[in-house]
């Protein structure tokens, strides 16, 4: 770094930039304002402002006769939201989010445990990259790929046929509520793809929580006579639990608001995200779409306050 300073050109003492620099230096609040102003304009004014207009919109309603949105305060849209058909959508989405979260924590734990406890430094770097790549990239492409994988003529069916166990697959697909004509148009398929898609979001916080469990605590447990299994259940797992909760924030929240995955792999029964999309689009009922979106916001606020109590934010 010392070498870079030698490039600094000599400046006359009263140059414009020097005077401006001094002027600003004497007014730290002005610097703060200049630094914070632009990001706050986007995130504080435009983004938070938009969230507020979302709330406002949910109290407007669509006039059934004219098809126009009436911009005056009313609870009519919320009454429409809590009709049995819409409640079923909400219930379907929330139970899917819960199922996906449980499946993700079960799948993520071994990987995170291996990464944090056993992997060499090199292997750890590789594993982190292997988990980060699907987290940051090409979400849509990977969902689309699942359509090919789960299709009736795709590789999963081929696999079952190859081993002569297509009966198992057929039996799964005839199950009420989760089955369908093929994996690519069934709730089971949606569940698989949701679980797949949010898995990296679960692995990383659990690994981070496990990394923070001090080796000395594990050793102390062993010294005091606990067997490895006991140490795992009584020491490691409780200490890693905040990481599981932190990961579940993502898997739960992202499932609630997604419409791409059920749109790609689902049948005709809607999930919350699809309902929002349909209401703001073709039917032009933006107020109802907004009211629908309030549900995941409320569910997540409740979830976050619970997660905070369990110490999840220290694990993020």
């Amino acid at each position, binding site marked *: 770094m010392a070498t*870079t300073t030698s490039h600094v050109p000599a400046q006359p003492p009263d140059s414009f*930039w*020097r005077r401006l620099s001094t002027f*600003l230096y004497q007014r730290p609040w002005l*610097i703060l304002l200049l*630094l*914070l102003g*632009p*990001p706050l304009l*986007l*995130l504080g004014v435009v*983004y*938070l*402002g938009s*969230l507020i*207009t*979302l709330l*406002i*919109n949910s109290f407007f309603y669509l006039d059934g006769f004219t098809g126009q949105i009436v911009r005056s305060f009313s609870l009519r849209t919320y009454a429409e939201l809590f009709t049995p058909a819409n409640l079923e959508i909400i219930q379907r989405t929330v139970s899917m989010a819960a199922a996906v979260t449980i499946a993700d924590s079960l*799948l*993520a734990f*071994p990987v995170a445990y*291996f990464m944090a*406890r056993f*992997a060499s430094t090199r292997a750890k770097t590789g*594993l*982190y990259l*292997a988990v*980060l*790549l*699907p987290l*940051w*990239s*090409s*979400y*849509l*492409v990977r969902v*689309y*790929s699942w*359509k*090919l994988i789960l299709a009736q*003529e795709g590789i999963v*069916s*081929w696999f079952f046929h190859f081993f002569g166990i297509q009966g198992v697959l057929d039996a799964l697909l005839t199950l009420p509520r989760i089955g369908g004509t093929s994996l690519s148009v069934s709730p089971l398929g949606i569940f698989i793809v949701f679980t797949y898609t949010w*898995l990296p979001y679960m*692995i990383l916080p659990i690994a981070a929580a496990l990394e923070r469990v001090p080796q000395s605590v594990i050793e102390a447990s062993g010294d005091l006579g606990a067997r490895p299994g006991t140490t795992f259940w009584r020491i490691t797992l409780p200490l890693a639990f905040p990481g599981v909760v932190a990961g579940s924030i*993502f898997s739960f*929240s*992202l499932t609630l*608001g*997604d*419409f*791409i995955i059920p749109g790609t792999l689902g049948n005709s029964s809607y999930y919350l995200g699809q309902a*929002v999309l349909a209401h*703001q689009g073709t039917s032009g009922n*933006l107020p109802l*779409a907004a009211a629908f*979106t309030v549900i*995941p916001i409320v569910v*997540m606020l409740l979830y976050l306050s619970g997660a905070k109590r369990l110490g999840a934010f220290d694990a993020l």
Partner: protein
Amino acid sequence: MHSESQRAPWLLKLATAAVIVFLHFPAVIIILYAFTTDDRTFTFPPPGLTLQWFGVALQRSDMWEAFGLSLRVAVIATGAALILGTLAASAVHRSKFFGREAISFLVILPIALPGIVTGIALRSAMSLGNIPFSFLTIIIGHATFCVVTVYNNVIARYRRTGKSQVEASMDLGATSFQTFRFVVLPNIATALLAGGMLAFALSFDEVIVTTFTAGQQMTLPIWIFSQLTRPRQRPVTNVVAVFVLLITFIPIIIAHRLTQDTSAE
């Protein structure tokens, strides 16, 4: 490191390997299907392999238009994220002020809430303000969730480098601008590059927020999504999907390298 002393149980190794394979399986499959000769169904194993779809894809003008739009959106959103993320990180790092904690929260919010919330919120604001869909509305949507990648990288770098170099520079008579240009910027350059790469990858294949802010405009992910419901030459979609995969993979690997190098120093 404690890890060398113990060997992992084979069952744990197996489970880890299985999950890692699971995570990358779809990418392999989509690459395979870009070469299939079957243009109506998704038959596995593919009846034959061909390169023809790459040529067909390159000649589709609708694909190129969508690609161009996505590229422009990603570049401008990344630029906005670089500027805004650096500004916010600098403010939080250099001074203590009321609501400082809230800034980190506010920056993370657009990525922690489901994309549909950001999407429908912006859509509501546009409806209320009678703002028509435009290139700018897409950019605003993308910028909100891209800021976090730059912010996180830059603030992590700031924490590692401390404030002594900046103070030394000012003590030696440099102006704030010179200090930023010759001391701060070289220090955070790789963090900016890493954050920018992640922002680019996030923006380039974003589809949920874009759906609500694009109107009739088609970005590449929206183009792919529309091909799902109205398929025309299915393998072409597979080829385009492979392009998107590569365009988003490469920046992430570079970003990973960049952050890895500096933490190893």
